[in-house]
């Protein structure tokens, strides 16, 4: 099939190309994992487009405007997302079939939240460590493989696949982005080096999302929590790890986190809850709840089942 071009007319506040990220073992060479910070929404929009789990998408903050020069199927998801085709409102969370010359516009009503735009087909972009994600800090990924974000005027070439059906993510499958319930935290790492009353303080306090949030880490502000351990050696950092530097203000490590770090950690935000924090904007407040690793895994298996059923149902239909 011939290719289709997507022209970026406006890239909003910040738009990146992201996929599921690099293989985790790339961290052994010092590469960050990268990839979508809200992996849950990322997975769903790819399902809407009938894509494999690792397809590239746009991750955008602000209003993204695209035009296409060939028929292409797209899908948009995220918190409070508005979508327009040729200035007519259309639903988010469903497959959209665009004709040559159509314009797609999307953005979140919550300024700062991220929308994901998937396309049916293969993006013609270079790969680093098996990923097409842009990593600004490392200067890799993107049209020129130099880590610069998506810009207006750029043209992205897609090898499209035919997508005749229209899929929908129905209400029970749409992620609940609300922060009104605590984020589950798997206690661990230096948890025991925090005095019991310091741990209690952490789990009883409300933290505000600061404006220092990026793909590397989200800095929170509120009740300082201190660790009895003063010096430690750099060690591996998992997604969602909560570092407490000497100022006692938590930093939650996200997709572009460095592979090793030397601040004490009280635990990690559970993988199934990271998407909620990833979609938080400055001024939002969050609280944390301690869970143990086995209960967290049970929670992950349960919540993941819905999405796996969605994908499996699709895969069996294809046979």
């Amino acid at each position, binding site marked *: 099939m011939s290719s289709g071009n997507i022209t970026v007319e406006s890239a909003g506040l910040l738009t990146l190309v992201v996929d599921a990220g690099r*293989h*985790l*073992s790339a*961290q*052994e*060479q*010092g*590469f960050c994992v990268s990839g979508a910070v809200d992996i849950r929404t990322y997975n769903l929009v790819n399902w809407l487009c009938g894509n494999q789990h690792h397809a590239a998408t746009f991750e955008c903050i602000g209003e993204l405007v695209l035009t296409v020069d060939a028929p292409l199927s797209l899908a948009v998801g995220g918190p409070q997302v508005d979508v327009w085709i040729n200035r007519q409102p259309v639903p988010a969370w469903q497959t959209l079939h665009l004709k040559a010359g159509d314009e797609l516009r999307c953005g979140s009503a919550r300024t700062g939240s991220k929308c994901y735009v998937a396309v049916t087909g293969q993006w013609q972009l270079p790969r*680093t*460590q098996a990923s097409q994600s842009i990593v600004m800090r*490392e*200067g*890799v990924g993107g049209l020129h493989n130099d880590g610069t974000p998506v810009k207006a005027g750029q043209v992205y070439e897609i090898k499209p696949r035919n997508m005749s059906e229209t899929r929908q993510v129905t209400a029970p499958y749409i992620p609940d982005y609300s922060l009104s319930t605590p984020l589950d935290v*798997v*206690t*661990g*790492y*230096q*948890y*025991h080096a925090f005095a019991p009353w310091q741990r209690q303080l952490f789990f009883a306090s409300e933290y505000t999302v600061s404006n220092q949030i990026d793909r590397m880490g989200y800095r929170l502000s509120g009740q300082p929590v201190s660790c009895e351990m003063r010096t430690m*050696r*750099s*060690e*591996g950092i*998992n*997604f*969602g*790890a909560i570092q407490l530097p000497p100022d006692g203000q938590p930093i939650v490590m996200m997709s572009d986190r*460095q*592979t*090793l770090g030397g601040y004490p950690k009280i*635990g*990690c935000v*559970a*993988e*199934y809850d990271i998407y909620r924090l990833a979609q938080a904007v400055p001024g939002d407040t969050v609280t944390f709840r301690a869970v*143990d*690793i*086995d209960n*967290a*895994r049970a929670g*992950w*298996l349960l919540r*993941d089942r819905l999405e796996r059923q969605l994908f499996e149902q699709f895969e069996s239909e294809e046979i």
Partner: protein
Amino acid sequence: MEAFGTVREIQPAGIDGLIVYFNGTTLTQANQAVQNMKSAIREDNPVWLKALIPGYDTLLVLFDLNLADSHTVYQELRSVNPAQQATGNGQHHRLGVWYGAPQACDFDIIRRHSGLSDEQIIAGHTGQPFTVFTVGFAPGFAYMGELPESLHCPRLDSPRKRVPTGAVAIADAQTAVYPAASPGGWNLLGLCAEPLFNPHWEQPVKLQAGDTVEFYAITEAQYQERLHEQR
């Protein structure tokens, strides 16, 4: 989870990770235990294994949540036999350094801390092979050690915004070469012309944990010549 052998402590590190802390009378010994455990698990290659991220005296083991839980991983840690792994099978590298290169020179700071002369500083850095303890922070950044105690210098109070590519640096008991220009808070000794990282190489990172590195002094002319050869 109970400690055993060279393992001092095991802690959860997220929903899909366990971090293992190792004992050792020296950092070199503890790091050897890390590398031994790492290669033993790698050899077993359990289906659930997603990544092994070594630190100095730690090993982060990441697993597939659909295929294992923390107990499965703990069983694996107990059952592998790291003691039987061969040691010292890393590569040996020799890296030429233009010591005192004006773009990367903190000799005055290092002199103040150590009381050593420039010649003694260079002798301390070139006199022995260093072990690569781990690679991390940025692609290809290899943490090496341990420096002779007389050369131990703390990190700068505030990190520089930009350290040039190839800068050779020391901090505390460690030494490293910046594979690419980046911010950095270590004390700089000079420049190394050898490329250490290229995302397009099949093996993008030259220095691997367990390798040994020996530094030797080169002149500015030799440095420029090597830089030129790579173009």
